[in-house]
């Protein structure tokens, strides 16, 4: 989502697309698999310059992070055994886990609650989508407790969930 203001700016200055077209692109990017930033870049590139445009814009989107990560990975290889680096990671790892957990909560808020304006500790129970929660518990049990089933590839659970979603209409 960090790229959104930037994309909106490009639309205004270059007139490649209107703001409402941009809103449609965001909606589609959000509802398709894959990282939002990549989806957005591909979509905008495709609108503006066809297949070639999509490829160029997507590659440009990832190029800076590929360079940065490669540099960090190189540095890390050298300093892997440094005490400060190891201690830093000791503190970093739980923080990173917490950030992923927080992302899980924000997807959960959309997936497990009915549409709401304002969710708080006091009113959240009235917004719970019980059908969705029950299905979530089933998937959790299948992926953690049921022998053999839990070894299945995550993609299979996603496919099952899509079918159940169509039938049950959460």
């Amino acid at each position, binding site marked *: 989502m960090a790229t959104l203001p930037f994309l909106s700016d490009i639309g205004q200055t270059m007139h490649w697309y209107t703001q409402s077209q941009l809103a449609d692109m965001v909606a*589609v990017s959000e509802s398709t698999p894959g*990282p939002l930033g990549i989806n957005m870049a591909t979509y905008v590139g495709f609108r503006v310059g066809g297949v070639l445009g999509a490829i160029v814009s997507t590659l440009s989107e990832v190029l800076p992070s590929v360079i940065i990560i*490669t540099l960090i990975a190189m540095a890390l290889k050298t300093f892997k055994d440094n005490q400060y680096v190891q201690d*830093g990671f000791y503190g970093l790892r739980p*923080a990173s886990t917490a950030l992923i*957990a927080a992302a899980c909560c924000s997807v959960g808020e959309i997936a497990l609650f009915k549409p709401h304006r304002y969710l708080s500790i006091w009113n959240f129970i009235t917004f719970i989508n019980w059908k969705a929660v029950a299905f979530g518990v089933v*998937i*959790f049990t299948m*992926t953690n407790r049921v022998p053999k089933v839990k070894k299945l590839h995550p993609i299979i659970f996603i496919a099952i*969930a899509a079918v159940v979603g169509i039938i049950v209409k959460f």
Partner: protein
Amino acid sequence: MFGGGYAMLPILQREIVENKKWVSDQEIADYYAIGQCTPGIIAVNTATFIGYKKRGVIGGIFATLGVISPSLLIIMTLAKIISRFENSEVVVNAFKGIRIAVVVLILNAVIKIGKSSIVDKATFGIFLCVLILAIVSNISPVVFVLIAATAGILIQSLRIRKGGKK
């Protein structure tokens, strides 16, 4: 929201840690940590890291291409049939179901990484503080990561000074 880059983490973990055994649970937790505090998308950053570890710079580049190509294909296909896609109730319902599965799969990933990242009271404290602050505020992940790394160094050096076992 489909879950974005985070939705890919459970799949990365299954393929790369469990099936191929290219990196350990702890290493992937480290890569997520770095992937979150550097600009760019966490799934792309993690892939670049793993690619670099296995095959150097070229490996990093190809791992990244691998992560982005499904999105490229899917979005370009959708862009052509977009009006049909948007109005389809079936697609909307399917995504509602998928989102629930994605939440559970990310939760599983968190539990798995948590086992290698939350190892004592101090790390549990860091986890809890960051989780609560990340939910209630809009503080950038970069800030969390910098503070947590500093805290890690401070905690460990205090332990050494106390003479306790590390």
